[in-house]
């Protein structure tokens, strides 16, 4: 029989599941992260800021006060010279996410393990997905632990148990935090497929991070007026200009995360962004129920998730097309 006749029926799609071997990659990545020195350093850093900020926050929060949301105050209370824990999160989460994945693909390439791994019966999909999910799950574990720690300290020092409302809000905020990390992780993963050198990938990721943290608001301040009319004469134009500025700032994931933090951790905040006094007329100064707060941040949360998926998809496409020969 000639080999050509022995060949199985040729189909248009690839054979087998793209996720074959995903479990193996995932467990290896998580094991690497959780036992690595890099992760240990990052964990210490977060732990230190968590304990430090919570401790100072506890000094200003008095259990006796009739504040409904004592536990949420733990996250948001700042006392000189230390900023609140949420502020640290906004800065540290990207760094941790970048540190976990900036060398995921080019590292394999430089160790010359990439071709050996891809010669096993798995698709590239499984490798990339396993690396991303491994990082994201590690992030989830670390932050879940931190959250539990904060609540634990709270219970010990405040003496009152957290309410269901508080717990729910903290969990939504945790979800936001994880996907805020997801964006930066996907970005670093993207750079790790584009750049051959891990150092370049790390620097590029940090450059983007620094750009959004330090410069984006300035850039928006310059661009926004250029996009609107030259002179604002009517109220509508003023509103339009304000909204334009709003939209532009929300390109930054940091703004989105800050929005989520504000609404979730400060239940009395009812609006995000541009609000006219007219709209606030007769508004009741009372905390929003959890479900309503979730509705307010829904666009921000889905935005974070969508951006994460988008960046991952881009990394995926580039990785599929990459020549693996050294």
């Amino acid at each position: 029989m000639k080999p050509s006749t022995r060949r199985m029926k040729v189909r248009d799609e690839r054979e087998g599941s793209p996720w074959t071997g995903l479990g193996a990659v995932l467990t290896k990545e998580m094991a690497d992260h959780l036992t690595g020195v890099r992760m240990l350093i990052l964990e210490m850093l977060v732990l230190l800021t968590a304990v430090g900020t919570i401790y100072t926050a506890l000094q200003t929060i008095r259990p006796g006060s009739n504040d409904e949301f004592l536990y949420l105050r733990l996250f948001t209370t700042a006392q000189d010279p230390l900023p609140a824990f949420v502020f640290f999160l906004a800065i540290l989460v990207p760094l941790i996410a970048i540190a976990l994945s900036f060398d995921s693909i080019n590292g394999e390439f430089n160790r010359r393990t990439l071709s050996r791994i891809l010669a096993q019966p798995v698709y590239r999909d499984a490798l990339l997905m396993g690396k991303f999910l491994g990082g994201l799950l590690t992030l989830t574990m670390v932050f879940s632990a931190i959250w539990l720690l904060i609540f634990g300290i709270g219970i010990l020092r405040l003496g009152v148990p957290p309410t269901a409302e508080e717990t729910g809000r903290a969990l939504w905020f945790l979800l936001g935090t994880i996907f805020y990390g997801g964006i930066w992780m996907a970005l670093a993963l993207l750079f790790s497929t584009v750049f051959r050198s891990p150092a370049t990938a790390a620097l590029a990721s940090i450059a983007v991070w620094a750009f959004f943290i330090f410069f984006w608001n300035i850039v928006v301040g310059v661009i926004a007026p250029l996009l609107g009319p030259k002179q604002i004469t009517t109220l509508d134009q003023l509103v339009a200009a304000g909204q334009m500025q709003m939209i532009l700032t929300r390109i930054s994931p940091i703004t989105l995360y800050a929005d989520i933090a504000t609404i979730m951790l400060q239940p009395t905040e009812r609006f995000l962004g541009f609000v006219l006094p007219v709209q606030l007329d007769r508004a009741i100064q009372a905390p929003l129920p959890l479900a309503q707060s979730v509705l307010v941040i829904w666009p921000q949360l889905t935005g974070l998730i969508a951006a994460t998926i988008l960046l991952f998809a881009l990394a995926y496409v580039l990785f599929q097309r990459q020549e693996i020969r050294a």
Partner: protein
Amino acid sequence: MNDLVLETRGLTKRYGDFTAVDHLDLSVRRGEVFGLLGPNGAGKTTTILMLLGLTEPTEGEVNVLGFDPARQPLSVKKRVGYMPDQVGFYDDLTARENLFYIAKLNGIPRDQIKRRVEEAIERVRLSEVIDKRVGAFSRGMRQRLGLADVLIKNPQLIIMDEPTQGLDPELAHEFLSLIHSLKEEGTTILLSSHLLHQVQAICDRVGLFSRGRMVLQGTVPELARKVLGGAYRIQLETEGSAAKFRKALEGLQDVNAVTVKDGRIIVEAQKDIRADAAEAVVKAGGRLRGLSVESQSLDDIYTRYFEEAKHETVN
């Protein structure tokens, strides 16, 4: 009946204007060791990557163990072991951990993993360092671990890219004998190398590669006949004057030329006529002290072939 393990027809790979592999027709039979030989940059690695479905061919057909690597890469990669050149490992993991990961990626059942990893490591004689970190391994140990890594999936075909590159002669020899023992067990092996003299001994058939083309294919003696004019050089050492046997030897069949040099007789023949030559000397009343046939080296064939090729293009 189908003895072909691997077959390509008109296999071509282009990167922009550059043609890395040009209409390659290659076939490897079951149980043989096939050497893909040629200088660096001749397209050997690209060919191998296409055989494994790691790079898509621009044109042509590939068939590996009855599968098309571009469409059924998982089936191919489950059955074919690939050892890249300068094989890399996770340095901070032990040899055992490195192979465990590969075993898991291959979907080997959990209860068999431990045994198969240990067997593979035993096979390449690394059992003593199985729980040492690979970072501390020498080049030769890494190479052997690379072979264990391939053996773990019990492959029907093993593809090795430059298996002896960077090894000192002794290690290279040791590694080649490992490959030889695999061949004895009936594994089909395709290996690429630019170190012709090293792989000559273990290859059943070789293909000479140049600029993406397979210019010669066959067993080493076949190629020798084709390129070196088919000459077997038989050396005879006799007692007394060598010159008087000259006539007797020239009278034999298949003899091209007889020369005497430093008291030795050199017979160039189309066949291995050692027995006839010895008989002729004895019959002519001589006493034979030594008799040997020069084996043709691939290096000679290769150099000669490309000299001629160059010559032709110049003319």
